[in-house]
Each structure stands twice: as C-alpha cells, then as structure tokens.
C-alpha cells in the first residue's frame, strides 16, 4: 500500500473518530445532526480510499451509496424530525460533557486493547485502523446509555451502525453488496420507525425524555 493511500486512510479514520467524539461534546441537537452527516462523509471517504487502492469499481459504488444514505438521507430525516419537535438542546445528559469526554478517552483505550488480537491476525494499515471503528461502536453505546432525548438515541444507534460498517470494511474488505444494501435498508427503516415513535411519544407525553417511560414497566 503506497504512502499516500495510508495517509488518506488514516485521515479518513481520524475524521471518522473525531466526529464521533465531537457528538459527545456538542449539546445542540442541530449540531449533532451536522456532525453525524460529517461522519457519514468520512465513512464514505474511507471506503472510497479502500476501493481506489484495490481498483474495485464495486467498492466505489458502495462508497457512493453509503455516502448518499449516511451523509444525505439520514441527516435530512433527522433534521425534519428536529424541526417538528421544537427541542433544541440535549438538556441534562446523565453523564455531563466533561466526564463524557474522559469516558470517550477510556473507551478508545479499551477499543485499542480489545482490537489487538484482530490486528495480529493480519497486520495491514487497514486493520491497524480498526480500533477507531471499535471506538465509534463504543461511543454509540455510550450515547444510547447516557443521553435523554429521543433524537440523541437515534444518533447513538446510527453511530453503532457506522462503527460496525467501518469495522467490516477495515478488517474484511467489506461485505458483499447484497448484504450491504440489506443492512442499509434496515437502518433506513429503523430510523423511519424511530421517527414515528418519537412523534407518538411527544404526542403522548409532551416530550421525548426516555426516563418519562419509567412508569410503563410491569
């Protein structure tokens, strides 16, 4: 793999990871959606770099498709939901922003630790970037577990999915296009369903704080 390719790959992975961490930092929901769109761009760039290196037109096409979905369609859906909700900020996350950033650092360390066996299997520049993808998976889980607004929850879920996609391309050269299309459609459908649920929640409870649902258990 030539130097330029490695540099570009590392740049894309760096951007992918950085946008993930910044999502934890910002509390305006509109900015979070923008950062998520940027992460989609970084993911598409990452796949495109891999495709250009392998000279595979298929991978380039997948990169274009993923870019369109994750940097275009999903963010626009999220913006529409945001405009309808009238909620502007992530108020009172369960873990505050400073502590979240420290936790992100710890999670990144953890990701590097648990990815070592994977890297040892095939030490290429692509697999060496796998910990970044693993970190984004962890960050997605962290957002799910600590943010209150329904929109943040959707973003957390999509972060996990971005991380899994990146992991698949970095370690295994991607899945077959059929599987990739299926997964992408699933994600789209999940977001649509979550959007409907968010609307219903607001209609029923006047807000989308998930802890309002606490009384619904048995």
């Amino acid at each position, binding site marked *: 793999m030539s130097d330029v390719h490695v540099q570009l790959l590392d740049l894309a992975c760096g951007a992918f990871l950085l946008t993930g961490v910044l999502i934890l930092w910002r509390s305006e929901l509109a900015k979070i959606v923008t950062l998520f769109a940027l992460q989609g761009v970084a993911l598409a760039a990452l796949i495109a770099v891999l495709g250009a290196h392998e000279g595979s037109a298929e991978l380039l096409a997948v990169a274009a498709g993923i870019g369109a979905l994750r940097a275009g369609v999903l963010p626009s859906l999220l913006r529409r939901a945001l405009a309808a909700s009238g909620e502007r900020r992530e108020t009172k996350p369960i873990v505050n922003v400073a502590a979240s950033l420290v936790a992100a650092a710890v999670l990144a360390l953890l990701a590097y*630790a*648990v990815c070592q066996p994977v890297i040892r299997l095939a030490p290429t520049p692509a697999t060496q970037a796998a910990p970044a993808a693993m970190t984004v998976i*962890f960050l997605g*889980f962290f957002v*799910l*577990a*600590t943010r*209150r607004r329904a929109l943040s929850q959707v973003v957390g879920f999509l972060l996990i999915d971005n991380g899994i996609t990146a992991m698949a391309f970095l370690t295994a050269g991607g899945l077959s296009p059929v599987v990739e299309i299926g997964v992408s459609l699933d994600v789209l459908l999940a977001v649509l369903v979550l959007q409907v649920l968010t609307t219903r929640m607001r209609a029923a409870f006047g807000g989308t704080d998930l802890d309002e649902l*606490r009384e619904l258990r048995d």
Partner: protein
Amino acid sequence: MNLLFPGALALCALASLLAALPPARMRSALAGTVLAGAGATALAAGVAAMTGRTWSAWLPDLLPLAGVRLELDALGGLFTAVTGGVTAAAAIYSIGYARHAPRTAQILVPLFAAALLLVPAAASVSTFLLLWELMAIASLLLVLADHRARPAVRSAGVWYAVLTHLGLVAILGGLAAFAAAAGGESFAELRRADVNEATAIGVFLATFAGFASKAGIVPLHVWLPRAHPEAPSHVSALMSAAMVNMGIYGIVRVGLDLLGGGPRWWWLVVLAAGALSALHGILQAAVASDLKRLLGHSTTENMGLVLIGVGAAGFFEASGERALAALALAAALLHVINHSAFKTLLFLAAGSVLHGTGTRDLDALGGLRERMPVTTAVFALGALCASALPPGNAFVSEWLMLQSLIRSLPDGGVSAAVVMPLAVAAVALTAGLSAATFVKALGTGFLARPRSAEAERAHEAPPSMLAGMALAGAACAALALGPTLVLPGVADVTGQVLPGRGPATDGAYLRAAASSLSPVLIAAALAVTAAALLAVLRALAMRRARRAARLWDCGAGPMTARMEYTATSFAEPLQRVFDDVLAPESDVEVTHVKESAYLVDRVRFQAAVPDRIEHRLYAPAIALADRLGRASRGLANGSVHRYVGYGFAAFAVTLIVLAVTG
C-alpha cells in the same frame, strides 16, 4: 418380530384422534374402547418381551442428530406390561367417568399412555430423555385438567412442574455425563463402557435423585400427595400405578443394568431412602383424611418398599450373593406389579366415590355400603390387598422381600448385620401401619352411617366404571391367589438385569421362598375358618330364642351419625403414638362473651398434621428463592438507559475477557 408393541402405540394414536374428532357424546366411549384395546395389546407385548420375543427399532431420521432408538427387552417389557394393564382398566373406567371431561384432557390421556409405554422401550440417552419429558408434560397437563373448578389444582400443578423438571435436570446431567464418558449414547454402548469411579458415582447419584423424585421418594415426594389427588381419577390411577414405576425402572436400568452394580454404599443409600419413604408415606397416610391424598401417600410408601428390595438386590449383588440379589429384585419387581394392580383399583374406586358424592373427605363420608355396594366391595378388596395381609397380593411380595432380607443375616458381614434387621423392622412396621390405614379408609369411608348430605345422596357408578374397577379387581385377585403365574417371568427378568447376567441366578432361594407360602392354601384356610366360625356362632345363637331390644346407648337417646368414628378420630391414637415424629399442630381459640370473661361464646378448634419434611426443607428454600426474586426486581427499575447500560457493560466485559484470555 414382535409387532404387538407398535400396534399398541398405533391404537393409542387412534384413541387420541377419536377423542378429538367425533361428536362430544361419542368421544369418551370410542376413545376409551380403543385405548383399552391399546392397553391389552401393550400388556401382551410386554409379556412377549419378558419371555424373550423382544422388539427393537432404529429411526435415524425422526430426530435430528441423534435419531430415535427403541428396544423393548425383558425389563422394559415388565414395566410396559404393567402400564398396559393399568391403561386397559383406566380406559374402560374413563368411558363413564370422563364423559363430560374437556376435550384436551381426553386427547391427552392416550398420549400420556403412549409416552408411559415408550419410556421403558427407549434405548438411547436422547430418546429416553425426550420420552421422559413427553411423559412429564402430558401428565402435568392432565393434572391441570380441572384447574377451572378448584384453585388447589394450580398450586399442585406448580409443585409438580417444578419438581419434575428439577428431576429431569438431574437425570439429564447424569446421563449426559455418562454418555460423554462412555463415548456413545446408545444403551448398548453405555453398558459396554468402562467409566472411571468418580464419574460413575456422579452419574448414579444424579440419576438416583432424578428418578427418586418421579417415584415420590422422600424427601422429593412433596408433589405426589398434591398432584395425584387433583388429577381426574383415571389419570390418578395411571400416574400412581404406572408413572411412578418409571422412577423405579430408571434406578434399576441405570444403576444395575447400565452401570453394572457398583459399590455397596450406593445400594445402602437406596435402601435407606426406601425405608424412610415407606415409613414417612404410611405415617402420613395413616393421619390423612382426604381419600385420594391418603392413596397418594400410600404410593410413596409402596415405592419405598420397592426401593428397599432394589437396594437389597444391589447390596447383595455387590457382596457376591447372586441368588439373594435375584430374590430381592424379584420381590421388588413383583411388588411393583402388585402395587400397580391394587393402586389402580383403589384410585378408580376413589374416583367412583368422588363421582357419586362429590367429596373426597373421609370425615364427611360414611354409609356408602348400601348406596354404592359394588364400589364398596372393590374398595374392600383393594384395601385388603394394600394392607399387606393374607390373602392379599401385597402380602406375597412383602413376604418374599422379608425372606430375602432375613436370609442374608447368617453370613452378610457387619453392614448387612446392622442394616438388614433395620430394613426388616421398617417393612414390618409399614405393613402394620398400612393395615390400620386401610381399615380406617374402608371403615370410616364406607361403613356406618352417612355423616353428610353428600354421602346421603350417594349413587352407584355407571356400568363402564364398574367394569374398569372389576377388571382391576380381577387382576388383584389373580395376583393374590396365583403369584406363581407371574413369578417365573419376573425371575427371568431379574436374571437378565443383574450385572452377572446369564442363567447363574439358579433361583434356589426363589423357589424355596416361593414354596414357603401357598396363597391358595392360605386363602382356602381363611375361607374355611371364617365359614366354620360363622357356622358355630349361628349354631350357638340358634340354641336360644332371639329377642329384639334397643341397643345400649348410655341412655342418651338414639345414636347419631355425629357420634361415629371419623377418619380423624380413628387416626388420633396413632397420631398420639407418633406424636414426636408427626409433630401435629392444633389450635384452640376461645371467644368470650363481651360482658364476662367467665362465659364462653364460641370455641374454635383446628388440627392439622403438616408434612414435617416439607416444612423444614422446602419452606426455607422457597423463602430464599422468593427473597432473591424480590431483590432482583431492583435491577430492573424501568429506566431504558439502565437497560442499555447493562447491554453495554456486558458487551465491553465480554470483549475485555476475550482480549485478556485470547
């Protein structure tokens, strides 16, 4: 090739269909008739297998991975024959009894019977476990058949479900470990395998616990006196006379046949559990006042007696006394047959009482002799058989068992010198108490005058129920008068089961012990004595002129039904004797008149004999499980974030563990 067995199974399936499809008023008649045919066919198939015409099948495609392996050998044939006989009697009985039963229950009875027939024919671990579970599930659903009518049924169902599945887990663990150590799961491979001692001990103890829970052995018996009474009576008969036998079958099959004996202490454990169960069961039966519950406790007692025989057989085998082992095992298996015969009869008769009066409470019965003469007669026959007195059939098998225990004394070593006399004492005490128990059941339940309106309105059962009871009664009489008809077959089975195998069990003891009593002569002598006594009394009475006079009633006017002995009062002296063991609870509550503490307004008296083992062993365990369950509710407080956090933590911890160990 013995085609009787698959024929019996096919008839069971047909009976199940006939219980499902035809119009409601014909169902019980059609299904009952066909199921009775299935039972008779299975009886014939079992007898054929006992005499050497075995049957086997290998169906590799029926179950994924393992396939189904069936083989009906002599031991399995004995249990299949017993189940077939019980099924035939219960099926004829059910034509009248289950006429208005829910359809689900009617469909399940033939399936339950088929599972019971198949369990002794299973010849691989996976097949056995599958059929065992099928049997457990079918019986559980049948226990729950009347859950709409009585809330007690549900609690009985929960007890049964929990204990039968704990038993299944123990059997599953034991047999899986056995199969893993043996390197194959068919019974033939297990038999050939040479497993190390620690594994063998683990397998034996685990399977013994599991099978003992099915046989209602103390301390795993608590489900039995709950579940058997709550099931419909023909199902009670199937459970109490056929299903509990499967526990004995499992112990004999795994302990003696597959594991090939083992050290002496295994069998001392079995013997001790049996003796404890026999005593505990009959003591609880002696103080019980619910007729079917009494019969359930009596089942625990009889299974305990069988285990005494099985334990003695294993003990003698391990000591090298092959002939004595054969005698003890033959006595145990004969007692299985005898118990099945009289317990079927008694449960069917109890069902007839329930059908005729609507109550099972012995304290509220009485006076059924005029109103239900046939039921009273067959119950009397069953009670005679169950109380181990000549000329009943239980007397024969218990006599053989005592013979085997006593004959070991001269040269048995220290442990035999200590254990066998204790076992003899346990058997003897059990026999005495069971006589008192069944005198109570017959005397307070059927004789004297009715003590309640329900008993007053009692009516005799329809002919099909009477025919079912008559069939069971005929089996009891045949077994009582002609045990030599079945003993050779049973002796053949013991010869094939005992680890030495072959014809080495020369049967000298068996012949000697069997010839030491002649049931026909005993019965004839009893009949002649009774007739002579009657004749003498009649002759004496004829010498003086007869005169009519009022009975002496202490001058208090005519005696009422409230002055009779009830079941509780009849058992009271026994309860006093065994006060320290039974620990009965009584509670007197005196309410005074408001104006004066010296005047009593009302006195309330409550007495109960709780099961001490249940009280001491199960109550703390249930309380602990309950506390844990309540505490664990704190983990789930309804917060979505917390649930996601659990998932996140589990994910991260799994990855860390993988990274550290990988």
